[in-house]
């Protein structure tokens, strides 16, 4: 196959005949377009004929380029037509000729400063909408919970156990691994710096209080938000995309009761357990490093720990866990149920779910810190 060409003929008075030859196909469209443009500009005759008799192959690309040329000339008030069009290409040409190409101009956005201000405004109203949705979800959850308590037979026990296995049991190994490391790193850094003052022994106070009050629960919540919150959002989102949520609703089930409540209950049970396991693992890691790196034998570590931390320290950490689980779960489910049709929306909501729940967990931790300080815990 040879590339398509447009040959200019000799003008005869006000009339000119151009010859098109070769393959006017997609493959050569890039090469043909400049020739066509040159012809549009270069030909001055009033009446123009394009002879297609020598064209070998013609497809939509070639047909459109010819059509574009004709339209240009016709718009200039000239008489342009095709001759020698093969019968089997006539249908294609008619299809292309029927197209209007009328595309409304793209809506022009405002300038960049306005766009930035606009996006800030949209984000801020979005925060308000998020809070409303959060409150709405909490309300629906409480209502669903009330219904389930009044009619315990409707409680989805199997589903709850299944979710509990996924977010609780299956999360244990990774939580243990990470918290052991965190405890070990805290102890190592503590020993390294405290040693300068000869205060190595106080590393036990630091690790004990920090892990039990703050780090244990925070690390576990961040892990759970990334691991379980994201999967809640993705699952619910995919179910929304495939209209499964609508199907539930039309069958007379409340999606909150069927889908969200078991997940929430599983999370509220699992996170405190994981927090306990995580805190213990972190203390273990801290003790191990104190022994191997700091030369503090385990007996001394334990004795010192007993003095440094009290039941209150432990309680402060554990009380926070179920509330944080609630925040993670509600954010994840709200985001999941907001997913629209596209795959992109699913990804966006999953990201939002993780980012928002981690942010809220930290904010909540701050609020708890103020609360416990003011009641003297």
């Amino acid at each position: 196959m040879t590339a398509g060409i447009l040959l200019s003929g000799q003008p005869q008075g006000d009339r000119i005949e151009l010859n098109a030859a070769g393959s006017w196909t997609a493959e050569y469209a890039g090469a043909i377009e400049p020739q066509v443009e040159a012809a549009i500009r270069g030909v001055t005759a009033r009446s123009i004929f394009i002879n297609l008799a020598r064209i070998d192959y013609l497809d939509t690309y070639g047909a459109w380029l010819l059509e574009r040329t004709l339209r240009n000339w016709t718009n200039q008030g000239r008489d342009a037509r095709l001759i020698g069009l093969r019968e089997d290409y006539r249908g294609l040409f008619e299809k292309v000729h029927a197209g209007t190409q009328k595309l409304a101009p793209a809506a022009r956005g405002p300038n960049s400063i306005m766009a930035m201000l606009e996006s800030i405004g949209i984000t801020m109203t979005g925060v308000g909408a998020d809070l409303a949705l959060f409150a709405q979800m909490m309300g629906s959850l409480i209502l669903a919970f009330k219904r389930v308590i009044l009619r315990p037979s409707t409680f989805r026990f199997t589903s709850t156990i299944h979710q509990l296995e996924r977010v609780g049991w299956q999360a244990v190994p990774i939580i243990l691994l990470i918290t052991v490391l965190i405890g070990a790193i805290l102890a190592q850094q503590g020993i390294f710096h405290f040693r300068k003052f000869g205060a190595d022994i106080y590393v036990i106070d630091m690790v004990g209080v920090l892990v039990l009050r703050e780090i244990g629960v925070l690390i576990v919540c961040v892990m759970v938000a990334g691991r379980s919150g994201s999967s809640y959002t993705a699952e619910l989102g995919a179910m929304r995309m495939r209209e499964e949520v609508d199907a539930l609703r039309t069958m007379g089930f409340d999606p909150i009761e069927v889908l969200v409540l078991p997940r929430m209950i599983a999370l509220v049970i699992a996170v405190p357990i994981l927090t306990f396991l995580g805190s213990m693992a972190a203390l273990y890691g801290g003790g191990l490093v104190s022994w191997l790196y700091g030369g503090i034998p385990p007996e001394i570590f334990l004795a010192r720990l007993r003095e440094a931390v009290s039941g209150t320290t432990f309680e402060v950490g554990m009380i926070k866990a179920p509330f944080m689980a609630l925040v993670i779960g509600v954010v994840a489910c709200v985001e999941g149920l907001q997913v629209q049709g596209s795959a992109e929306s699913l990804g966006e909501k999953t990201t939002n779910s993780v980012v928002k729940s981690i942010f809220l967990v930290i904010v909540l931790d701050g609020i708890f810190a103020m609360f416990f300080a003011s009641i003297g815990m």
Partner: protein
Amino acid sequence: MAASNTAVIEVRDLVVDLKGNRILNGVTLDVYRGEILGFVGASGAGKSVLTRTIVGLLPKQAGRIDVLGVNLDQAGELQRQEIERRWGILFQQGALFSSLTVGENVEFPIREYLDVSERLMTEIAITKLEMVGLKPDVYRKYPSELSGGMIKRVALARALALDPEILFLDEPTSGLDPISAGDFDQLILTLQRTSAMAVFMVTHDLDSLHTICDRIAVLGEGKIIEAGNMDRMLASQHPWLRAYFHGVRARAGRKAAN
């Protein structure tokens, strides 16, 4: 344009296993230039498997597939790409990229394979959209804003973006109302007649088989049990074929047609 005798797809003794089950067991099939081949078979018989194997989405255990005269096993990377440029595939659900606009979806293969100006690309995309019966306004919309029938049309426009020589259609009329399905059939027929491409159409729609297919191939028990025109299907004594083409729905359809 009548079907000529050059085969654009030649499948010989194809064997495909899926998760340990033998789905296709010695399929031999030709698709000729310029014909519309309707491909039928019971649900789960492996129609989609054959389509997906031909286009290279599934591995095969044995057999040979030639597309446009090229053995796909022996084709190098470049030759394969060259072949892929010359076929278009319409997936059952449309498979439009949901993060791109309709226009970008149609332009996607053009951008990847051809070296043409931005302007020509846009114009071709709009031309294709208008050819499949859509208004140019859809160009800037996102797939999530379209109805099921429109999604199929956009997907067809994308499959046709490079003016392919072979068009694979996976149940093109499923999920469309009878009027839209009929329109879609006519659309495929018109487009096929204008460009003389070969159309390989997996379908369950008896109306499509009657009205636009030049030839029908039937898959059963992992093999092609019959191939030929409609008369041959109606004359066949194979029990499944009798049930399919002489069933209640087929009779009702013929009565309506007469």
